[in-house]
């Protein structure tokens, strides 16, 4: 019997078990694959200062980053992709790349760069879960890293200002949501009736956009016009996390 594994991650709110996309992805995968995880939400974060959240600790092994954690779980025989064909496995990688390239920049922007959202929601939420005096410094650092990532990957000519970059990343995100909606269609999950790695990643990225109440919500409004994606998130919350859909 494997020793219980411990997952350190950011906590929940607004009806979600975690508001952090990577943490949520790992938690969802663990539920789908039946991996027994003891979840510890962070409330003092020396570890988080290295950008290591979420972190899985199993006996003596410490693993960070969702992709590596999921690989580790699969090696421990907690494999949600067992029934997928080789092509479906390939599709999984491709759609995850789509999420990271097209949706992640605007997700980062909504949480960490948009001034109104950051000041009224994100910063207070994270600061309240981080020990003083790190709480004065860490949210700002995470915000700067998010902006940096957006500008380095999507900025540069022909965009001359942050506004133009922002407009482009939101256009890309809306297109990505439309593509996901078309791909999901009327199925319950992306590959039939049982959830897989791809469902964990999509849920991890979509649920925070869907549920967290920000003052500036254009991405959320666009998502709400795609009822199959909303239904997808709500189903996972009710079936796997035993939380009500209304939060």
């Amino acid at each position: 019997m494997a020793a219980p594994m411990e997952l350190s991650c950011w906590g929940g709110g607004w009806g979600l078990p975690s508001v952090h996309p990577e943490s949520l992805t790992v938690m969802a995968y663990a539920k789908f694959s039946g991996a027994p995880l003891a979840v510890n939400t962070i409330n003092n974060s020396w570890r988080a200062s290295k950008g290591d959240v979420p972190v899985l600790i199993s006996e003596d092994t410490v693993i960070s980053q969702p992709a590596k954690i999921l690989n580790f779980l699969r090696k421990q025989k907690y494999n949600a992709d067992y029934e997928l064909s080789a092509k479906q496995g390939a599709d999984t990688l491709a759609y995850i790349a789509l999420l990271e390239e097209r949706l992640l920049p605007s997700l980062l922007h909504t949480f960490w760069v948009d001034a109104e959202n950051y000041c009224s929601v994100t910063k207070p939420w994270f600061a309240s879960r981080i020990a003083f005096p790190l709480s004065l410094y860490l949210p700002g650092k995470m915000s700067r890293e998010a902006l940096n990532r957006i500008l380095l990957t999507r900025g540069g000519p022909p965009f001359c200002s942050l506004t133009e970059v922002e407009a482009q990343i939101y256009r890309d995100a809306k297109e990505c949501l439309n593509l996901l909606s078309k791909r999901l269609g009327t199925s319950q999950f992306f590959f039939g009736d049982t959830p897989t790695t791809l469902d964990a990643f999509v849920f991890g990225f979509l649920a925070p956009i869907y549920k967290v109440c920000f003052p500036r919500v254009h991405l959320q409004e666009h998502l709400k016009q795609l009822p199959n994606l909303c239904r997808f998130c709500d189903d996972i919350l009710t079936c796997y996390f035993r939380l009500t859909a209304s939060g």
Partner: protein
Amino acid sequence: ATLCFQAFLQMCNLPIRVVCRANAEYMSPSGKLPFIHVGNQVVSELGPIVQFVKAKGHSLSDGLDEVQKAEMKAYMELVNNMLLTAELYLQWCDDVTVEEITHPRYGSPYPWPLNRILSYQKQWEVRRKMKAIGWAGKTLQQVLEDVDQCCQALSQRLGTQPYFFNKQPTELDALVFGHLFTILTTQLTTDELSEKVKHYSNLTAFCRRIEQQYFEGNDKESSSTAAARSAKKSLLR
């Protein structure tokens, strides 16, 4: 990336002339290569060029349904996310390759010390980007494993079909061809990268097929490609 482009335009049956210029990056509206110059319009990067060509009435992906288009875009992002980043990593973050190949090649059109300054500047930019996306901590071995994973996914998706969406080539085929052909034919300090691709015989056959179909006949006409091709060798050899 230039090859992705040429392949795409050949597949659309649009004639092109390739010209090499040292200041090409500065001529491009987005600072990125390649770019095309049509009449008095200049368009750079594969995405906008595909749109531009589509607006002129040529499109390779009109025959796809919505789900297939979603899949095509996802695979294109996979190639950009993994293959392109791995190529950049190898060119600019692997110390041996940087010293022996990249610095000399990148700085070659310029006199000293400009050649060194420009190439260090570019290296610094690329390393900043790698750090932002979490690739700075990766070892060469991990990057090669990522390339392998990407090639495996492409190989599984292609299967035994001639193109990714069966009988007709699309932007995805052009993109994959451009990257894989470059990996297979560019000389580096180590063969490990090209070995990863060669492991998948359907991918090498795919590259050979596109090379034969879209590039063979044009060799005589386009003498300016000779400079670009001098560093590359044909797959057929």
